[in-house]
């Protein structure tokens, strides 16, 4: 057996691994509570209210009936990212933006670990090459973790 075969196998494995990483630079596993991609509600509020600094593009990726009752002022409605229509709308909204644009996603439809929307939306933006994406960490739901704290909201589409 040629001595070069083990070397070639290792090389092929390394190449495959690098390719997979390049195709998915970050994944929803990054969204574990406490991870750097998450913003707590008080952090987002400070960011939005601060006169200085880059303002994020704030996108709501949740169900419309919840958004219509109350949402964060300045948020744009994208639609539930758990379905294709929502992801299509998300792609269309960001396709002309620079990849270093600060984008904040949020939903708040249900407890964090059960939210069907924030992870697909986050993964979509990552797959498109956006590298400055944050997700609002809503532990329980938007009512408990934002509205009940007295943080600003508006209603309607």
């Amino acid at each position, binding site marked *: 057996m040629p001595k070069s075969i083990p070397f070639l196998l290792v090389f092929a494995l390394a190449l495959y691994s690098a390719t997979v990483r390049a195709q998915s630079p970050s994944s929803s596993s990054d969204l574990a509570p406490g991870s750097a991609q998450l913003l707590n509600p008080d952090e987002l509020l400070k960011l939005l209210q601060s006169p200085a600094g880059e303002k994020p593009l704030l996108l709501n990726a949740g*169900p419309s009936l919840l958004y219509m009752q109350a949402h964060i002022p300045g948020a744009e409605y994208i639609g539930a990212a758990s379905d294709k229509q929502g992801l299509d709308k998300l792609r269309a909204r960001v396709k002309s933006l620079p990849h270093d644009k600060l984008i904040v996603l949020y939903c708040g439809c249900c*407890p964090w670990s059960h939210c069907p929307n924030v992870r697909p939306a986050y993964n979509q933006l990552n797959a498109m090459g956006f590298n400055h994406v944050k997700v609002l960490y809503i532990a329980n739901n938007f009512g408990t973790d934002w509205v009940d704290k007295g943080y600003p909201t508006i209603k309607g589409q």
Partner: protein
Amino acid sequence: MPTRRIVLIIVAIAIAVAVYEGAQHRSAKGTHPGAVDSPAAAFNLQDLDGKPLSLSDYRGKVVLLNFWATWCTPCRGEIPQFIDYQNKYGPQGLQLVGISMDDDAKPVHDFYQQFKMNYPVAIGSAGLAESYGGVLGLPVTFLIGRDGRIAAKYVGAVELPVLQQKIESLLSSAR
């Protein structure tokens, strides 16, 4: 006797303060839409089969009003138990009503048939949710007493033994 009089006055003031604060507390609880002790908001909807569905149809019954959605995992987890409650407590006067907060009715129809839901479900609206104090996260479940007032509100997945105990308590209350 002066000392005795002073004690009586202090006791009277304490009672008056307690009564006043109790009234304030009840008022605060019952004032806001969807608050415990407040009247449950009336609604006139259509169920998934197109039949009229009104809260007033169930006057005199205990109503479990559940805001849910097919995409909500904790909501889905509660449905089989709610189906059992309808079977078990329906003859005693419990009526379940589901309000779906899905954006699209199709998955609700599919879910309804797949899970063989045995109580009426209607598609909700932002206005209906607001009349119950806002539904800004799912699930949210209300128990409405025979008197038409909200007896309990549960935000998030409900602890089923607690819910069941409350249902039994309300069912045993006088009409």
